[in-house]
């Protein structure tokens, strides 16, 4: 079969069904809520200040990818899981075009900005609610996954990536990580780097088996963690 599958990958976290979007965002149909982690706007210019003149287009790429998924999912609410701006001055460095695009996205839904370690408070002009964490249904959204286990935790901060190797080829991509009780989202920002799954920071979160769900071009794939596969449910894309 060579046909491109656009099946959504659904997983259950603490009893709530979440759709893992190929963009790296999580879509919660039950609450019409879209979740982004670690957007890191203006990471490029932050490096430029320190002398590495990286292409100044990361914010544009990130905004375009956000715009795509927002147009597809049409959320009522958007939760940004923190580190949305790479540093405190990042919002000031956006140019007019980028500000306009971001403002338009800001008006597309009700935003909940969770504060992260990079950006204690997003700029006031963006609107939305700013909180440390928020509980919705059986899920709790925060930036940094807590050391103490709390069922239903949806977090970012760790930028998980993993590598699969097959037929002499290997592929290293961002991934979602979950054991069915909590979930860590991949970083969304174009310049956000990654932390390999084998890093203890990620392993330490899950005591037993956990699954990695890797971002593909057309969908997300379950690539490791057999024990939680029973939580997987496939639904055909509409």
């Amino acid at each position: 079969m060579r046909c491109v599958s656009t099946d959504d990958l659904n997983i259950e976290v603490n009893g709530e069904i979440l759709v893992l979007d190929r963009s790296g965002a999580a879509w919660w149909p039950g609450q019409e809520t879209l979740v982004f982690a670690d957007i890191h706007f203006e990471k490029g210019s932050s490096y430029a200040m320190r002398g590495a003149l990286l292409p100044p287009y990361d914010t544009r790429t990130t905004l375009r990818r956000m715009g795509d998924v927002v147009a597809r999912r049409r959320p009522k609410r958007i939760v940004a899981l923190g580190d949305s701006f790479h540093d405190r001055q990042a919002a000031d460095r956006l140019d007019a075009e980028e500000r306009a695009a971001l403002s338009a996205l800001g008006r597309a839904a009700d935003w909940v900005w969770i504060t992260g370690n990079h950006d204690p408070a997003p700029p006031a002009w963006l609107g939305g609610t700013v909180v440390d964490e928020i509980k919705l249904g059986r899920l709790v959204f925060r930036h940094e996954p807590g050391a103490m286990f709390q069922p239903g935790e949806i977090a970012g901060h760790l930028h998980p990536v993993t590598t699969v190797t097959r037929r002499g080829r290997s592929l290293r991509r961002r991934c979602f990580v979950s054991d069915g009780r909590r979930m860590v989202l991949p970083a969304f920002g174009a310049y956000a780097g990654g932390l390999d799954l084998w890093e203890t920071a990620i392993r330490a979160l899950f005591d037993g088996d956990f699954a990695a769900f890797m971002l593909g071009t057309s969908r997300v794939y379950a690539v490791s963690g057999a024990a939680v596969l029973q939580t997987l449910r496939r639904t055909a894309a509409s």
Partner: protein
Amino acid sequence: MNALPQAFSDWFASRGWAPRPHQLALVEHAARGESVLLIAPTGGGKTLAGFLPTLIDLAKLPSRRPRALHTLYISPLKALAVDVARNLDTPVEEMRLPVRIETRTGDTPASRRQRQKTLPPDILLTTPEQLALLVASRESARLFESLKTVVLDELHAMHNSKRGDLLALGLARLRTLAPEHRTVGLSATVADPKPLLDYMGGGALVRGLAGAAPQISILASDTYVPWAGHIARYAMADVLEAIKRAKTSLVFVNTRANAERTFQELWRLNEGNLPIALHHGSLAPAQRRKVESAMTKGALRAVVCTSTLDLGIDWGAVDNVICIGAPKGAARLVQRIGRANHRLDEPSQALLVPSNRFEVLECEAARDAVMAGELDGDRLRIGGLDVLAQHVLGTACAKPFDADRLFAEVTSASPYAHLTRDDFDKVVDFVATGGYALKRYDRYARLRRTEDGKWRVAHPRVAQQYRMNVGVIVEDPMIDIRLQAKGRPTGVGGRVLGQMEEYFVEQLAHGDTFVFAGDVLRFEGMHEDAAYVSRTHDPEAGVPSYNGGKFPLSTFLAKRVREMVSRPESWAVLPDPVNEWLRIQEFRSYIPQPGQLLVETFPRGSKNYLVCYPFEGRLAHQTLGMLLTRRLERLRMRPLGFSANEYALAVWALRDMSGLDMGKLFDQDMLGDDLDAWLGESNLYKRTFRNCAIIAGLIERRFPGREKTGRQVTFSSDLIYDVLREHEPDHILLRATYEDAATGLLDIARLSEMLARVKARIVTKRLDRVSPLAVPALLEIAKEMVAGEAHEDILRETEESLIADAMRVD
């Protein structure tokens, strides 16, 4: 003889030597202030010839004089610079010349390097990287104003490479700082000296006497020649015999993995315990020094080595050179043969050991070429824009520069002779602010304009960054290989066996076997930043660490091999199995004539094959394979994979491809959109981008301890690549990457020439089964799966196997 001062004539006489004509010629040219290119085989007293005029000049000076640099010597190898310095000591001491000689390499203590800038020796021996640092220092103008002579050693090995670009720019700087100096180029025999003369900035040509013709034999078996592979295990007993017959042998192989394997095989047979050592680039430096010094002492009977010993220190005792595998090029073969017996009047002995049938042809063709005195002419590279960016920054570090003047200076260097002013300005803009169309980094600029319009560095930190980043050699990120303790899980403890390139480790799957440090190892998995392995008794390593050679077959040699195949009357010299192989090919299929491209199609098993024979080297064939499978996918042929060697490309598909219009399939237009689409996802291309980005100074090179592993850099350069390609596909750095890949890892340049050459000259053979010529390509170990949706396939398969595992009820 009258060209030499008395003291020098006496010195030659005291050693029982007579000065050679080319040594005297160099003295005469120097007296007239002329630059010279000396082309002479090894063993001709070439280095001494290069220094004689300098020594004569310095001998005239009073011994008490202000310290000033007279002669700068540049070698591609720091070991060679050190060795030459040692050799110069002899005449200097014996004639009691008032001459101060010093070396300067990465190993020289920082305090001495600092002192050398203000209190230089008369003769400084160094490398291209150190020259770059010197011309970028604030002391450069004063240091070089006294310079009289630049000696470029092993110029043939330096000029046509990225390092050659760096050196050319440094030399252009020297022409500005010391306009009166002359240049002496020293080179082995080359097909065409003109590019070398251009590179030096012109001069007279002096040729040394040709040495005795080498005696080259080819080890050929009339009973068995392997169909494929690169190890030549069948011949190891004969190789050991050849080592026994000689005093000291150098055994050259083309890759590090082959060096490991050959070393292992020789020792398996080495019952007499002949001292045979191993030398290659990823052995620890201390280990390499040990082998070199044992060699110098004459304590070894043989060294198995890679191109690390193609150049370098003269070992007088070597009387036999054995080349295992394909010679790849006639010039490379001459260079290697020249490592034996550095005396002109005695013929060098060499034994070529082909490891498969095609290599028999290649060895014959190379021997013919060497005996006829014909050598490969390399395609001249165009100076890299990434190297230029590094140089522009370095120039600003020394002192603010004027763009017009620097442009004139840069274009006086032959690799940059055709650089346009527009591209130059773009490079300066890149160095200053990143060169992006979206001008956002002006306030973070690394270069700023002074009031008189010159460019200066914006901050001392910039000069520091430059010094950390100088040079064009980018090491691959390395990963520790740890031996897993028995009965313990992966990731616990484990002795470090050494390091391997990250990209190699990344392609290993659990259970794969490979050779490393003389052992066959089994890959158990990655944990933290190490690869865990166990020892295995499996004699066959499944994964070669390099597929075939790193150097592609030269265009020149490929042409000779093609011609040899096309003329049945020339097959008589070939061993019986090879001769028979070609005759059956002639009977069953077709023998392609020069200029033609043979394309065969046949079914085999459940698959359909298409095999073509461009003879353009593995790199070009791999690129062709990627592009062809894209097309075949579009033509709904359902391609499954391909494999390439130096001579042929095999593609297999579910559908029968024999009905296709081959002229259309092989049309040059594949180098348009198909290539562009493929470049977007090619890992090789992204690696090229990473190297260019490091050389150009966009991202920093890694130093041990400064970053945890190489994985993060690889990752972030990929992110930069994706974003830059999306927003600014014509950016100067992407152009640098393309030009690099086109002549490097992807060999697009050669592929393009081939496609043009065979246009309307494709011969198609529809066969009912595999042809003799196709067998080696089908047996290649390294196979590629189709590029198209390959990434999604990997993910889909991983998921399917995961689900299958989970659903199993046993």
